[in-house]
């Protein structure tokens, strides 16, 4: 299961941020005026699992003036770096295909933080374990949709089966391309660097404009190769040592 976040429909009301925090009992992230348009929560982290980005693109020409809004969330990657590196097994792939941190197992080592190409994960204020979107695992268990999707008044956040969402996203892109300059899909390609997201997005500009990496690659992508290389090197080394020893003898 996953999200399709369609930014052409996002009105920046932040109901998703509030619904997420209310349901998941997350604390406020501090009361700081950032001056970054209407965004005062700044980023996804351990205490904010949904985050609405505001990008002002206002030129002199009213026809091209835009105020982009995008509700960001954990991407629930097909190839999830966080899951790969978690040394305690706290991060799991659930029966819904989502990536979830079990906070009773997490020891707060923070390896997952650096393994996420999107900077989604952070430390939770409450118990110093790592936190991020669970796609409301507890709600899914009882047949409810995630709190953010439920609260979204304009269906900018849609919840469903990832394959169906991908199809829907393609259709939606075809529908809006003529109306919205720069419309493009993000993380809808299963062959991209993270194997496609469980959260996909319809953006109105390049991903980097929203603070998203343009070509995200799971950092553990080359891990098997590295292990192989390391294995060969070790074997060679071992061979050399044995050889040396044999020669000395």
């Amino acid at each position, binding site marked *: 299961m996953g999200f399709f976040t369609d930014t052409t429909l996002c009105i920046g009301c932040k109901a998703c941020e509030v619904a997420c925090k209310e349901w998941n009992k997350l604390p406020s992230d501090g009361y700081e*005026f950032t001056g970054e348009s209407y965004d005062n929560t700044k980023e996804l982290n351990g205490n904010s699992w949904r985050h609405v980005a505001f990008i002002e693109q206002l030129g002199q020409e*009213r026809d091209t003036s835009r105020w982009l809004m995008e509700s960001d969330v954990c991407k629930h990657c097909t190839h999830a770096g966080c899951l790969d590196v978690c040394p305690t097994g706290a991060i799991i792939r659930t029966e819904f295909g989502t990536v979830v941190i079990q906070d009773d197992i997490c020891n707060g080592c923070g390896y997952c933080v650096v393994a996420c190409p999107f900077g989604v994960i952070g430390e939770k204020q409450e118990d110093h374990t790592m936190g991020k979107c669970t796609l409301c695992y507890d709600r899914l268990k009882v047949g409810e949709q995630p709190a953010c999707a439920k609260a979204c008044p304009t269906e900018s956040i849609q919840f469903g089966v990832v394959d169906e969402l991908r199809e829907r996203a393609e259709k939606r892109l075809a529908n809006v391309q003529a109306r919205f300059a720069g419309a493009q899909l993000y993380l809808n390609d299963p062959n991209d660097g993270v194997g496609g997201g469980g959260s996909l997005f319809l953006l109105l500009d390049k991903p980097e404009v929203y603070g998203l990496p343009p070509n995200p690659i799971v950092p553990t992508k080359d891990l098997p190769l590295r292990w192989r290389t390391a294995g060969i090197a070790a074997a060679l080394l071992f061979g050399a040592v044995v050889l040396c020893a044999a020669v000395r003898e």
Partner: protein
Amino acid sequence: MGTSFGRGGATTFQQDLQNSDCILIMGSNMAENHPVGFQWVMEARERGAKIIHVDPRFTRTSAMVNLHVPIRPGTDTAFLGAIIHYILEHDRAFKEYVVNYTNAPVILREDFKDTEELDGFFSGWHEDQNRYTFESWQYGSMDGAPHMDKTLQDPRCVYQVLKRHYARYTPETAAQICGIDAQQIIEVAEALCANSGRERTSAISYSVGWTQHTAGAQTIRGAAIIQLLLGNIGRPGGGILALRGHASIQGSTDIPTLFNLLPGYIPMPHALAHDNLKDFIESGSAMAGAWGNLDRYVVSLLKAWFGEHATEKSDFCFDLLPRINGDHSTYRSIMDMLDGKVKGFFCIGENPAVGSGNSGLHRRALANLEWLVVRDFNEIESASFWYDAPEIESGELRTESIKTEIFWMPAAGHTEKDGSFTNTQRLLQWRDKAVEPQDEARSELWFYYHLGKRIKEKIAQQAEPHADPIRFLTWEYPETGETREPSAAAVLREINGWDAQGKALSGFGELKADGSTACGCWIYCGCYKDEQNQTARRKPGSEQNWVAPEWAWAWPANRRILYNRASADPQGKPWSERKKYVWWDEQKSEWIGFDTPDFAKNKRPDYIPPNGAKADDAIAGGQPFIMQADGLGWIFAPTGLVDGPLPVYYEPHESPVRNLLYSQQANPCRRQFPRPFNESNPSPSELHGDAFPFVLHTYRLTEHHTAGAMSRSVPHLSELQPEFFCEVSPELAQLRGLIHGDWATIFTSRAVIEARVMVTGRVKPMILQGKEFHSVGLPYHWGSRGLVTGDSANDLLQITLEPNAHINETKGLTCDIMPGRRPRGEAVPAFLNDVRKRAHMDVVT
């Protein structure tokens, strides 16, 4: 709205916006302040409708629409005037609708003079009394049906008067007033015209951006004229949607907290004019239309309130109703508080110390009371002003000399009590209590019910007549639980009313004037039909037609689109298949459709009233506006408004420029309160009119709720907008040296406050009459209490009222701004004295 169409409510419902071919959102930031309803605008946009936002700022609403037009705050009437000019000039009105359903053909009196003839005034102006008398605005003939010219050619018919009146509102002139290009107005006008007619409809949606001006009612009248000319009232996808400022504001005018109304828009009796019920009924009821049955509504109301005591012999206890003898509106009462005429005050669901215009004046008024009851979740600023307020900080007020005794009581939240909300579209929706209120928190219903019970007990033994209104009042509702919470459903049932057998009524058609029926609010009659709480119905939209008549209940009679007889042509056929809604079924001999017809069910479209017909029988089969005595939509309002039968553009009370259209600068009927701490910044034509060079306007953000009592105490909302900020253009920032993210000091002749600076391209300078002007935008949510605090934008405002609705101008004043933090303590009054001196305001203006 009431004057133009007959009822003071939105003519349509938010879900119907999905059927619009064009939506004009103006005086409203719908996406930010009505995000849930805005989904229907998005739905319309996705279906290909043109969505237009006319608003001073580029907001989250503007970001979603096809066209944004940034006008100067307070110039809406000029903008709408130019649209009317365009419709008339290019002959784009929906003629068949206009001729049959509006008063455009009515011939006006010879002695009626328009503003064209009297330079900004209508006939009937009394310079010495600052008011109009209305005789000359009446129809030419009031004996029976008014005289009409259905060819619309007679020079004295409303249509021709309108043409002359709006001749000067050219897009070019309006553009100079609004600070935009004429082409932008033409684009909007053309979009509305192209999307109106038989096959298409356009809707207009507004909120407090229109009402909070000294000419607010006339702005709404402008929209009414446009929608009548284009034939968009009573039809799907059309209408005017009044988006209310917060939950149940519609309900608080229906069952009013207003001083001059009884439930259901029945006027409050006047001390001098209404000695008995007969006088009152005669002066208040119309010969034709629904108001012809006023006696039934009033008698049933008196039965609901005074029960067995209300008999024919006791004149149904009419004498026990309170009387008014003048203006007792909120702001007038504040002035009276300052003057020591009001001793006590209940402050419920509001926070005037932050939320009302010129909040400093309100705090001074509260400090002059003997007692004050504040019921809220937290100790809001209106309860803490005696030790924590700008006036205390500056030393102008001293805690030890404030005598007000304050009773602060914890209130239950909306999830902690049963009850109904009446929302923006007249829809009553029931909500059940989810959790018990904590500790001593109680519902408002509990508070008033038990307060009433105690007062009744105390007064029971008093035989004096002045105790009768309380002694005779019916006050019995079932109580439940430990806290003895009264039943909200029983209150709703009383509002609905019952017959002589005590059976719930099913509609106001059943009300009687003989005392056999009781009904707490005639327009809500039917909300408890068949002994069922109709407002609690929750049948999903997917299981019924798109109008969803089985979701909750709307007044009147569960109608969702008002005046829907107009969705059919004079013969009763839908104007088009695409826009069919309610129509005449010849075989069944009744009106049918998707909604409850807003018309007598079996009245034929060709019905002509016989001579001497009264009330609804006097409304012809082709007249959809059944509340009006003439059954017509009022393009010209012969009665109902004190400042003119047609909208006129006047500058806001405080303005940086001269009125381009008339030599009269501001609305001559506006209500002013010149007094210390409520000084007016000088405007052009007055000396030193440029002393406060920038336009000031206030507004709200999605993240907070009004004066902040419900959001500044909630961490999850407070973090989203933690600090008070001002929004300025890069040009103004450069002009005044304001730095993004830093502090700015904003001041008027009333107050000086500080805010963080938000420099944004979303705010643009305006070119007015060839000169560049700037605006300062301020969200008004902050005060000194709560998790996030800040100065209150409303401290800067001045109190001058719109003369019909007594609403304060909050969205178009003048101010000045400079970089850095504000003065503190005793330096504040000194600073303001200096400001006033520099503006040469030695005398109170």
